[in-house]
């Protein structure tokens, strides 16, 4: 792993706010290394400190301590003027778009270009190209108030790309959008990553957004980074409870488990409830068939979720095993010997 030469290196970042005598530690000792070409996702509930953390990347938020190195430049040591120059290499989009209402779509994309030294004709060429990339070429003369949320975010993306940044920060950029528009915007970000090679940092509270575009994920809770890794390891093998919660919400296994507990279906089947997680090309059917062939143990599949993440299959399966006690025990042992994660789930409700 190229841990030491990422395009964004945050080291031991602390951000502490003082207000009305109270001290709030928004970010506590967080280190992140984002490699060039990554789509890096930061997930956490609101108040976890993720927005504060990404604002440190372009120093919109000055860290209380720690170093910020972007493109081998230590931003905390730059003069105000050099920092403004460095910021041009870091595009940013926001939850509420933050467009100028007094300017047209064209004017908004032109906004960052006014200081670029390009001639008016060169700027026009560039703006037309950018509007084309985000699919709004026919909306150049409209004002933001005449656009839908998704269109506004596309304008904001075009504006963020105007100075050809190598990095794009997306601060909850899809949180104010409906699911279909969210998918479209995330697709666009994914395309920009592939076609322009732009490094993207996405903050969100939705695992689905992470799943769709990110290749690496960091999970934040109470200002701390509690888990970090590739999308596949985070999704297929989450370690911390919060990470599991996010994954469970995304696969819906959480709500399924609740239903199973309430319905008492496993008692009726008089079996044991097993959760199976796997990454790669194992599939459900052979396992179920194999269990019956070898142990005469029936596996009733109660839930199954298979996703393709970055061209790899990630699956979750929930089944009740019924059969003679020692056979079931042997079956579980057999499962453990396979290249899958096996977990027996207690049917007691939490807190009981």
């Amino acid at each position, binding site marked *: 792993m190229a841990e030491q030469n990422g395009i964004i290196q945050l080291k031991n970042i602390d951000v502490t706010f003082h207000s009305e005598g109270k001290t709030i530690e928004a970010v506590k000792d967080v280190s992140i290394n984002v490699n060039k070409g990554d789509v890096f996702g930061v997930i956490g509930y609101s108040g976890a400190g993720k927005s504060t953390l990404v604002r440190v990347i372009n120093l919109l938020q000055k860290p209380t301590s720690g170093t910020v190195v972007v493109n081998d430049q230590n931003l905390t040591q730059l003069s105000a003027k050099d920092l403004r120059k460095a910021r041009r290499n870091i595009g940013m989009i*926001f939850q509420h778009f933050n*467009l100028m*209402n*007094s300017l047209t779509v064209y004017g908004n994309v032109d*906004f960052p270009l006014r200081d670029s030294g390009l001639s008016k004709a060169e700027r026009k060429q560039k703006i037309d190209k950018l509007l084309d990339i985000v699919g709004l070429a026919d909306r150049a003369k409209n004002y933001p108030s005449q656009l839908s949320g998704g269109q506004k975010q596309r304008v904001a993306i075009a504006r963020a790309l105007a100075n050809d940044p190598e990095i794009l920060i997306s601060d909850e950029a899809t949180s104010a959008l409906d699911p279909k528009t969210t998918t479209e915007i995330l697709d666009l970000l994914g395309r920009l990553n592939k076609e322009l090679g732009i490094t993207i940092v996405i903050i969100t509270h939705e695992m689905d957004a992470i799943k769709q575009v990110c290749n690496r994920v960091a999970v934040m809770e109470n200002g701390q980074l509690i888990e970090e890794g590739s999308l596949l390891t985070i999704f297929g093998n989450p370690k911390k409870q919060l990470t599991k919660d996010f994954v469970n919400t995304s696969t819906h296994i959480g709500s399924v488990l609740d239903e199973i507990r309430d319905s008492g279906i496993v008692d009726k089947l008089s079996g044991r409830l097993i959760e199976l997680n796997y990454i790669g090309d194992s599939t459900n059917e052979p396992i179920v068939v194999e269990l019956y062939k070898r142990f005469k143990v029936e596996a009733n599949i109660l839930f199954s979720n298979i996703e393709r993440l970055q061209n790899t299959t990630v699956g979750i399966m929930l089944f009740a095993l019924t059969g003679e006690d020692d056979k079931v025990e042997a079956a579980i042992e057999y499962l453990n010997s396979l290249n899958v994660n096996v977990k027996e789930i207690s049917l007691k409700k939490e807190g009981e």
Partner: protein
Amino acid sequence: MADLVNKFLPNVVANWEGDNGFVVAIWQTLYMTFVSAFFAGIFGIVLGILLVVTADDGITPNKALYTFLDKLVNLFRSIPFIILLAVIGPFTRLIVGQTIGPTGALVPLVIGTAPFFARQVQLALVEVDHGVIEAAEAIGLSPMKIIFRVYLREGLPELIRSGTLTIISLIGLTAMAGAVGGGGLGNMAISVGYQRFENDVTIVSMLLILVLVFVIQGLGDFAVRKLEH
């Protein structure tokens, strides 16, 4: 028509022309209003911008400067205008060389209006979406460029609205300044109409001031409608 005017507004006709007539008074009121609006506008915008950018959540926080300006604005806003007129007499003479007449009224009018307008400017600019300011910072704009290209541009409709309000309240102040020697329609209404019991003069003075107010309000509203998207 002429007969009717002569019959119902005899004193207005008698006082229409001449050194102390209506025509001169109208010009004096317009002169006092617009010259002081110009200067109060400049001072008010500069002060208002400084109040916004030096505030705690502004783009260049400066607690000392903010507190000083904030107190200064409050102080001058607290002095009743009629007393301000008298108190700053020597200062007025220093600046414009006289304390009476429309020109003598300019200094107190500017000093009386600028703090009021500064507050209005502050309120208008604080309303500019903080997210847009943040986006401009992220783009790499300097504070000066953020003031001109974001604050003043995004806040323009609201600035015009408060500018209109300020000019209208300024017209009220010119009437007061007129009554103590500034001239204009306020002087006409009081020292001619009121003190000589020529009621038609008072009423016509008032109507002329109302016309001025309506025209300014109409222009302001029109500009705001054109600018808002």
